[in-house]
C-alpha cells in the first residue's frame, strides 16, 4: 500500500468525520446538550487534525486545532453553545470541509474566510461573545499546532468522567503559582497508562515518552505489574504503565499536548508534584517502581532491543514474530524471559494463537469498504442470472406438457432464490439519503447568509435507503431546488413580519418510501407561486399563447419549462432561468417524476418520486404492432378494455375515451413510435391509463397485455443512441430484446411536442 492509498483512506475517513461533525453540530443547534454529542463533535475534529498532522497538511491542522480548542471550551462547559456560537461552528465545519477538499484536490480556499473564522473561534475560546462583525481585518496569526499550545487561551479544563471511570484531578495555575520557587523549575507528576488499544491505533509509548523528555529533566518509572503470564499475553496489547516526574517550565498544557494524539487511548494524569521526591507511591496506583532505562528512548537503543529479544527468545519464534514495535518488544523480552523459566514452548504457541484470535475478533468490524465496481459487477451478474432463470423457466414450460414434474418445482425454488439474491445484492447498494440531506443544510446556511434571510432547515427520514446511483444523482437537482426555495420561495424577514409570519423561514426536506419508490418532498413556508406573475412571464417569453386558459396546477408547472425565471432581479444564486427545467430533466433521467403544489402566501411543496434502484424495474409487458414493449408499472394507474361507446372522436386526429364520466385523450403507442402508419382500432386493444408528470392522465393504446415481470434495465446508449420515446431496453425470457417505453416522452409527444423534434434536438446537442 503506498502513501497515496493511505492518504485516500484518510480523506474517506475525513468525509465520514465531517458528516459526523455536521450532524452533531446540527443536533446541538436543535438544543441537544448531551455531553456525548459534544464529545462526538470534538472527536471528529480531533481525528481530522490527527490524520492531517500525519500527512503534513499544515493548513488543515492549524484550523482544526483552533476549532478543537473552542470545542473543548464547550465540552468543559466554559462556553455556552448558543445559537450564535453554533453558527460560527457550523461555518467552521464548512471551512474545515473546504480545507479537506483543498488538501485532497489541490484547490485553494477562501483564506480571508478561514482567517476570519479563526479569529471568531479564538474570541469564543477567550470567552468573548460572538458578534456579527467579529471578522477582523488583520490576519490572525496561524496557531502552530502542538508547538505552543500554552499560548492558546483556553487551558484544558477538567475532563468529564470518561468511559473508564477515570477522574482527572482539577488543577489551577493560581494554586501553585505562589509555591513556585525561583530556582527550581516546577515539577509535575505524570501517570501515563496506555489503554489496551493504544498500540493497535498506531501510537507508540516510546515516541510519546521521547517527546516528553524534550520538555525537561525527567525520570521515568515503569510499572510492569499488569503484565500477565505469556499464555495470557496479547502481544499487541498494552500492559505497562509509567510514572513520570518531570521538571519543566513549559507548563501542564505542554505536557498534555505531547499526549494529544493518544489522548483517547490512554489514561493520563498530570499534576504538580506535591513534594520534589520523584516516584512517590501513588495511592491510586500502588506499585513497586522499576527504574526505567531511558536509553530505550533513543532511536539507537530502541532498534537494538529487538535483537536482544530475539536472542533471548530463540525458542519462541512465534512470539517474537508478533513483536513489531520497539515498545512491544520490551514487553516481549520480559515475556520471553518468563517463558525461559517455564521452558514451555507450548504455552507460547497457545499465546500466539490466542492473540491471533483476539486480532481476528478486533478486525471483524461492522462494516467493510468495498470497491463500487465490484458491487456493480455482482449486480450485473445477478441481472444475467435473473434473465437466464427466466429463459430456463420459459423453455421448460414450453417443453413440459404435464407441468407437474420435479423440474418445475426445482425451477420455482430457483426463482425464489434468484429473487432473494437480487434483493440482497440490491440492498448492498442501498444507502441512506443522509449525506445528501446534510449537504443541503450547508447550502441553506450559505444562501441564507447571502440573501440575509433567516432559514431553518428541517430534515426528516434521512435514514431512508435508496440505491447509491440514485443518491449520487440526487444531489444536483436537490441543490437547485433548495436554492430556489431559499432564494425565491422564502420572503425577506421584513416581508414575513409584515405578513404576520415567523421571521425565520422554514424549509422542510422529507424522504420516505412509498409503494416501491422513494418520495422526496421539499416544502417551504414562503410566499408560494405568484400565479399571475408566472402567467405573465410565460406569455412574455412566448411559452404559452396570451389567451391560454390554464388551471392553477398547469400554471404552477410552467416553472419547469426551459428558459423560465420569475425572479425580479437575477442573483448569483439562482434566477438565470436554467433552474427548474434542469431539475426536471435530471429527475426524469432517473426515471422519476416531479410535481409542485403551491398555496399563495403559505408556500410551495415540490414532490419528487424516484425509483429505488436504477438496475431493475417492474414492468407490464405489452404487444404493440407485433413488437413487445415494457411499460413501467409505476406509471400505470389502471388498465381497461375500451368499449366502442366510450370512444369519442375529437377534431380531426384526436380521440378521447370516457372513463367514469371524465374524458381522457387516447394515445396510440404504435402510431407515436412509428410502428404502424394508421391508428389502430381502440376496441381491439387495451388501454393503459397512465399518469404523466404534471398530473395529466392519458390512455395509452396497446394491442395486448402479455403479463407483468421484473426486468433488468439495459442501456441502449452503450452501443446505440438515445431513442425518443424509449427509456431503455431489457432482455426477456425468450432472449430477445424488448424496449422499455418512456411514458412521459410518449405523453409529451401526444401533446404535440414531436418526438422527431426532440430527436433532432438531441442530435444537434
Amino acid at each position: 500500500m503506498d502513501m497515496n492509498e493511505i492518504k485516500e483512506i484518510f480523506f474517506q475517513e475525513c468525509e465520514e468525520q465531517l458528516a459526523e461533525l455536521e450532524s452533531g453540530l446540527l443536533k446541538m443547534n436543535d438544543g441537544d446538550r448531551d455531553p456525548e454529542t459534544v464529545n462526538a463533535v470534538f472527536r471528529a475534529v480531533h481525528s481530522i487534525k490527527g490524520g492531517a498532522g500525519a500527512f503534513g497538511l499544515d493548513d488543515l491542522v492549524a484550523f482544526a486545532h483552533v476549532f478543537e480548542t473552542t470545542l473543548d471550551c464547550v465540552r468543559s462547559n466554559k462556553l455556552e453553545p448558543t445559537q450564535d456560537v453554533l453558527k460560527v461552528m457550523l461555518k467552521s465545519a464548512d471551512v474545515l470541509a473546504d480545507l479537506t477538499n483543498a488538501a485532497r484536490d489541490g484547490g485553494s480556499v477562501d483564506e480571508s474566510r478561514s482567517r476570519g473564522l479563526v479569529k471568531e473561534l479564538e474570541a469564543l475560546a477567550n470567552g468573548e461573545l460572538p458578534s456579527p462583525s467579529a471578522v477582523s481585518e488583520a490576519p490572525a496569526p496561524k496557531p502552530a499546532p502542538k508547538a505552543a499550545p500554552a499560548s492558546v487561551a483556553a487551558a484544558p479544563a477538567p475532563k468529564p468522567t470518561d468511559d473508564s471511570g477515570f477522574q482527572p484531578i482539577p488543577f489551577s495555575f493560581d494554586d501553585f503559582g505562589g509555591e513556585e520557587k525561583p530556582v527550581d523549575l516546577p515539577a509535575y507528576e505524570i501517570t501515563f497508562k496506555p489503554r489496551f488499544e493504544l498500540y493497535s491505533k498506531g501510537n507508540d509509548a516510546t515516541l510519546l515518552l521521547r517527546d516528553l523528555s524534550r520538555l525537561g529533566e525527567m525520570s521515568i518509572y515503569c510499572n510492569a505489574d499488569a503484565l500477565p503470564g505469556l499464555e495470557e499475553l496479547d502481544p499487541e496489547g498494552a500492559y505497562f504503565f509509567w510514572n513520570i516526574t518531570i521538571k519543566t517550565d513549559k507548563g501542564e498544557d505542554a505536557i498534555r499536548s505531547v499526549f494529544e494524539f493518544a489522548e483517547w487511548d490512554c489514561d493520563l494524569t498530570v499534576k504538580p508534584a506535591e513534594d520534589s521526591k520523584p516516584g512517590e507511591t501513588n495511592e491510586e496506583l500502588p506499585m513497586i517502581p522499576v527504574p526505567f532505562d531511558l536509553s530505550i528512548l533513543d532511536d539507537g537503543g530502541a532498534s537494538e532491543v529487538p535483537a536482544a529479544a530475539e536472542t533471548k527468545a530463540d525458542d519462541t519464534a512465534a512470539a517474537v514474530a508478533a513483536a513489531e514495535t520497539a515498545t512491544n518488544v520490551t514487553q516481549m523480552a520480559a515475556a520471553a524471559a518468563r517463558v525461559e523459566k517455564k521452558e514451555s514452548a507450548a504455552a507460547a504457541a497457545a499465546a500466539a494463537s490466542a492473540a491471533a484470535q483476539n486480532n481476528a475478533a478486533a478486525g471483524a468490524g461492522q462494516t467493510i469498504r468495498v470497491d463500487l465496481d465490484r458491487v456493480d459487477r455482482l449486480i450485473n451478474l445477478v441481472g444475467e442470472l435473473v434473465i437466464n432463470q427466466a429463459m430456463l423457466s420459459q423453455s421448460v414450460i414450453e417443453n413440459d406438457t404435464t407441468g407437474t414434474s420435479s423440474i418445475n418445482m426445482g425451477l420455482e425454488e430457483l426463482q425464489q432464490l434468484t429473487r432473494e439474491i437480487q434483493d440482497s445484492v440490491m440492498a448492498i447498494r442501498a444507502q441512506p439519503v443522509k449525506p445528501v440531506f446534510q449537504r443541503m443544510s450547508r447550502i441553506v446556511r450559505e444562501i441564507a447568509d447571502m440573501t440575509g434571510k433567516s432559514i431553518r432547515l428541517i430534515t426528516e427520514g434521512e435514514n431512508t435507503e435508496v440505491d447509491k446511483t440514485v443518491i449520487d444523482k440526487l444531489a444536483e437537482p436537490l441543490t437547485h431546488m433548495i436554492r430556489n426555495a431559499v432564494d425565491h420561495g422564502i420572503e425577506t424577514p421584513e416581508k414575513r413580519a409584515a405578513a404576520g409570519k415567523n421571521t425565520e423561514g422554514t424549509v422542510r426536506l422529507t424522504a420516505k418510501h412509498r409503494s416501491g419508490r422513494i418520495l422526496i418532498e421539499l416544502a417551504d413556508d414562503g410566499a408560494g407561486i405568484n400565479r399571475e406573475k408566472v402567467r405573465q412571464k410565460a406569455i412574455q417569453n412566448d411559452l404559452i399563447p396570451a389567451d391560454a386558459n390554464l388551471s392553477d396546477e398547469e400554471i404552477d408547472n410552467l416553472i419547469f419549462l426551459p428558459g423560465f425565471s420569475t425572479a425580479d432581479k437575477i442573483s448569483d444564486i439562482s434566477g438565470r432561468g436554467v433552474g427548474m427545467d434542469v431539475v426536471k430533466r435530471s429527475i426524469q433521467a432517473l426515471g422519476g417524476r416531479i410535481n409542485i403544489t403551491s398555496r399563495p402566501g403559505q408556500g410551495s411543496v415540490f414532490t419528487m418520486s424516484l425509483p429505488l434502484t436504477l438496475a431493475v424495474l417492474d414492468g407490464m409487458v405489452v404487444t404493440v404492432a407485433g413488437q413487445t414493449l415494457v411499460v413501467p408499472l409505476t406509471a400505470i394507474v389502471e388498465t381497461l378494455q375500451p368499449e366502442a361507446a366510450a370512444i369519442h372522436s375529437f377534431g380531426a386526429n384526436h380521440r378521447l375515451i370516457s372513463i367514469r364520466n371524465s374524458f381522457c385523450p387516447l394515445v396510440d403507442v404504435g402510431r407515436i413510435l412509428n410502428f404502424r402508419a394508421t391508428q389502430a382500432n381502440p376496441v381491439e386493444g387495451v388501454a393503459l391509463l397512465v399518469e404523466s408528470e404534471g398530473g395529466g392522465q392519458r390512455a395509452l393504446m396497446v394491442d395486448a397485455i402479455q403479463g407483468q415481470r421484473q426486468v433488468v434495465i439495459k442501456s441502449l446508449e452503450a452501443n446505440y443512441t438515445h431513442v425518443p420515446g424509449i427509456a431503455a431496453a431489457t432482455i426477456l425470457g425468450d432472449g430477445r430484446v424488448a424496449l422499455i417505453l418512456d411514458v412521459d416522452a410518449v405523453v409529451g409527444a401526444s401533446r404535440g411536442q414531436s418526438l422527431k423534434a426532440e430527436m433532432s434536438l438531441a442530435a444537434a446537442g
Partner: protein
Amino acid sequence: MSYTAKNLTLGGSELIAFRVGDQEFCVNIMSVREIRGWTPATAMPHSPSHMIGVINLRGAVLPIVDLSGRLGMKPTDPTARHVIIVAQVRRKVVGLLVDAVSDILTVTDDDIQPTPEVSSDLERQFARGILAIDKRMICLIELEALFPETESEAA
C-alpha cells in the same frame, strides 16, 4: 477528402472479406469481435432504414446495421442464412448484417490500391482502398467512416 492523409500503414495485416449483394468488401480483422448467425432483431422506432434493430448479445444490447442499406444498396431482407459481423467501432459495438463471410486475407500496404475517382461521395467516404485478389475486387471499408462520431455519439 485526401487519401494520402489517411494512415495506410497496414504492414502485413489480416482482413476479413465478406459478401454484400454481388460485391465483396473487407474490414480489418482487429476490429472484428465475433461472427454469428442471424437472430431476429427488435425494431427500433424512429431509426434510419438501414438500422434493422437490436439483439441480445450475451446480455448487452447490440444494434444491427444492414450493411447493404448503409452502403446505399438494396436493403437486405434478413434470413437464417445471413451473418452478423460483430465489430468494435470506437467505444461502441455494432453488428453488421452481411450475406456471407468469404475469406481471411493477409495483405501488405502495397496490395491496397487507392480508391478510383467516382462521382458518388458515399463510396469515397467509406472506401479506404481496393484490393485485387484472384481477379476479384474487394473494397476495404473503414468502419469509423461508416459510423461517424456524430451518429453514434448523438444522445
